[in-house]
C-alpha cells in the first residue's frame, strides 16, 4: 500500500479551479518529484497535502488513513511535514529556536533523542551549527532553505514535503541542497519534492509526475522522463 495516495483531487481558489482531478501516489521510501511550469498547480498540490488548502473534490489517503478533511496541525502529528515554499522560517527566531519549533508537535521522548536528531541536522547542514545563534530573518536564501529543511527534519517526518527548495538560489547551492535531499531520502525518509529545476530533480528521483495547468500529463521513473522528448522540450530547454 502506498504511503500517500491522492485520488482525483481538485482544488479551487474561489471559483477558479487550480487542480482538475490530480491523482498521484508516493510509496514508502521513495523520492517522488512533481515538476511543472509556473501556475501548473505544484504548490497547490503541496498545500493540499499539508492541509493549508482544502480540496474541493477527491481524497488524500496517508498510510491507509483518509486525511482529506484533517486539520494541518493534526497531519503534522501523523508525520506529514512540509518545508514551505519561500522557506517560511520564523524570521525573529534564532536557528536553534527555529529548529526547536520543528519538534513542537512531535516531541521527543527523551532529551538524548532530541540531541541526537539535532546533531544529525547539524551534520547534514554544518552551516546551521555555525550560525545557531543567528536570527533566521538575517540569513541568506540558501541558509534559510537549509534551515527550513532542517526544521522539518526535527519533526522526524514520515513524509517530507519540499516545496521548490531551489527557488532563487545560486547553482552551487542548488546542487548542494539536492545532494542533501537525496541523502535524506537514502536514509529512509520518504520525500515528495516540487521543483521547477527539472534536470536536478528528475535525475535524483525514483518517480516523477509532470503537472500542466492542473492536470497530470505524464508520469514515470525520473530518468525516463528526463529522456522524454516532450519533457525535454518543455522543461529542460533542449529539443
Amino acid at each position, binding site marked *: 500500500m502506498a504511503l500517500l495516495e491522492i485520488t482525483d483531487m481538485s482544488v479551487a481558489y474561489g471559483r477558479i479551479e487550480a487542480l482538475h482531478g490530480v491523482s498521484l501516489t508516493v510509496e514508502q521510501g521513495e523520492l517522488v518529484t512533481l515538476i511543472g511550469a509556473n501556475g501548473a498547480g505544484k504548490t497547490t498540490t503541496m498545500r493540499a497535502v*499539508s*492541509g*493549508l488548502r482544502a480540496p474541493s473534490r477527491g481524497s488524500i489517503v496517508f498510510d491507509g488513513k483518509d486525511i482529506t478533511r484533517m*486539520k*494541518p*496541525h493534526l497531519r*503534522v*502529528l501523523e508525520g506529514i*511535514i*512540509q518545508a*514551505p515554499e519561500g522557506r*517560511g*522560517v*520564523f*524570521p*525573529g*527566531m*534564532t536557528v*536553534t*529556536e527555529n529548529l*526547536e*519549533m*520543528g519538534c*513542537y*508537535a*512531535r516531541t521527543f521522548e527523551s532529551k538524548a533523542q*532530541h*540531541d*541526537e536528531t*539535532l*546533531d*544529525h541536522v*547539524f*551534520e*547534514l*547542514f*554544518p*552551516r546551521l*551549527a*555555525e*550560525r*545557531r*545563534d543567528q536570527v533566521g530573518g538575517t*540569513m*541568506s536564501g*540558501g*541558509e534559510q532553505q537549509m534551515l527550513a529543511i532542517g*526544521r522539518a527534519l526535527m*519533526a522526524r517526518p514520515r513524509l517530507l514535503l519540499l516545496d521548490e527548495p531551489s527557488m532563487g538560489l*545560486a547553482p*552551487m*547551492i542548488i546542487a*548542494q541542497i539536492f*545532494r*542533501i535531499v537525496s*541523502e535524506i531520502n*537514502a*536514509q529512509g525518509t520518504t520525500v515528495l519534492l516540487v521543483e521547477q529545476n527539472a534536470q536536478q530533480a528528475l535525475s535524483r528521483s525514483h518517480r516523477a509526475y509532470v503537472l500542466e495547468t492542473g492536470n497530470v500529463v505524464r508520469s514515470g521513473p525520473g530518468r525516463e522522463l528526463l529522456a522524454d522528448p516532450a519533457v525535454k522540450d518543455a522543461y529542460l530547454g533542449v529539443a
Partner: protein
Amino acid sequence: MSTSDTPDATSAKATSAKSTSAKATTSRPTSLPPAGRTPVAQRPHAGLGDRLRLWWDALARPTQWAIGVPFILLIAALPVIRPPLLTTVGTDFGSVMAQFGMVALIAIGLNVVVGQAGLLDLGYVGFYAIGAYTVALLTSPDSPWNLTDDWLSNDWAWLACLPVAIAVTAISGLILGSPTLRLRGDYLAIVTLGFGEIVRLLADNLDSVTGGGRGLSQVAYPRVGVSEEHPNGVFSAGNASGTLNAGVWWFWVSIVLIVIALLVVGNLERSRVGRAWVAIREDEDAAEIMGVPTFRFKLWAFVIGAAIGGISGALYAGQVQFVVPTNFNVINSMLFLCAVVLGGQGNKLGVIVGAFVVVYLPNFFLGRTEIFGIPIDGNEIANYKYLFFGLALVLLMIFRPQGLFPARQKLLTYGRELYVAARAAARKVSGAGDGSGRADAVPAVDVATEGDAR
C-alpha cells in the same frame, strides 16, 4: 553571507552522513556542545537592557523575589512618599497612580494579544467596558439586575463581582474571537475596532438596562477600614483627601492584581503556549505546518487578554463608582495600544512603563506652572497630549521601532535552566578576560575536521 566557501566540506559531510548517523545513534560527537545549551551566554550583548535581563534571568527564584518585592513595595509607597518633582500638581498623585495601575493591567492584557500573539486588536476598550459594566450592572442600584439588595452583601459585593467580571469578559473574548480570528491582519483590526464601538453603543442605547448616557452610579466598592474619619471605608470615592486617599488604596489593589497577572502571563510565555504565540506572530502558516493549532492558541490569547482587560474594568467601576459609555470610546483603545507600542510589544514589563508614560505624563503637566524654575503652561501642554503621543510614536517608529524596551524571546525548550547555566558560563568567560569571544565557530570546525577524517 555566501555559503560558497565551504561547499566541499558540506558535500563531504553529506556523502558521509549516512555512515556517521549510524554511528551517531550510539555516540554523539562529543565535540558538539549539547544541543540548545550554548546560545545565550555567547550571544553578543548589545546594551544595558540585555545585560540587565541576563543578570535578572540568572538569579535564583528566591533572590528574584528578594529584589522584586522591595522594588514593588517602593513603587507602592510612591504616592505615600510623594517625591517632590514626581508628585503631580493638578490632580491627586494617588488617583493618578490608581489610573496608572488600571492602564498597566490593560497593557499587560493587550500585550498578550498584540505583543505575544501578534493580533492587532483595536477594540480592546470593549473588554474594559464589559468588565466595568458587569460590576456596575450587578451592584448599582440604578441597574435592573442589581443584586446587592438580595444576596450580595454590600460590603463584599465588589470582590464577589470580580471573578464574575473576569468570566464574563473571557466569554466575550471567546464570542468575539471564534468568528473573527479566522481573519488576518488588517481585517481583524477592523472587526475588533467595530466590536469596541458596538459595546459602547450598546451601553449608550440600552437605556432600560445600562442607564444609557446617564450611566450607572453607586457601584459597589470594598467597604473596609470603616472609621469615624472614613464612614464609608477607605476605598470609597468620598475618601478623597489626605495622603492615604482612595486612589492610593486602589493603586495598591491594582498592584496586587498586576503581580498576579504578571505571574500568570509570565508562566504562559515560558510554556508551550508562549512558544506557539511567538510562532504564530512570526509566520502563521509556518506555525500551522509545524503542528501548532494556530486557531486554538489565537483564541486563547484573545480570551486571556480579554479577562485581564475585564479585571481592569472592574477596578475602574469600583474606584469611580460610576460608569458612563463615554469613558469607553475608541480613543481609549488607541491610548492602550499606544502604551503597549511605546513600552515595547511583547515585553510585559516594558508595557507597564508604557502605561506609566501614557497616564502619568499628561497629569505631570496638568496644573504645573513651572519646572526647574522655567515657567510653563502645563494645562495647555496636557491638552495637547494626543498630539504629543502621536509625535512620540512617529519618533519611536523611526528611532526605536520595537518600543522603548524591545522584547527578547526566551523560547528555548529548557528555558530557565539554560539561563542559569549561561550565567555560570558567562562568569567563567569574563573571568578569563574574554567576554567578547564568540565560541560558536568552534563546533563547525569540529564538524568539518570530523568529516575530513572519515
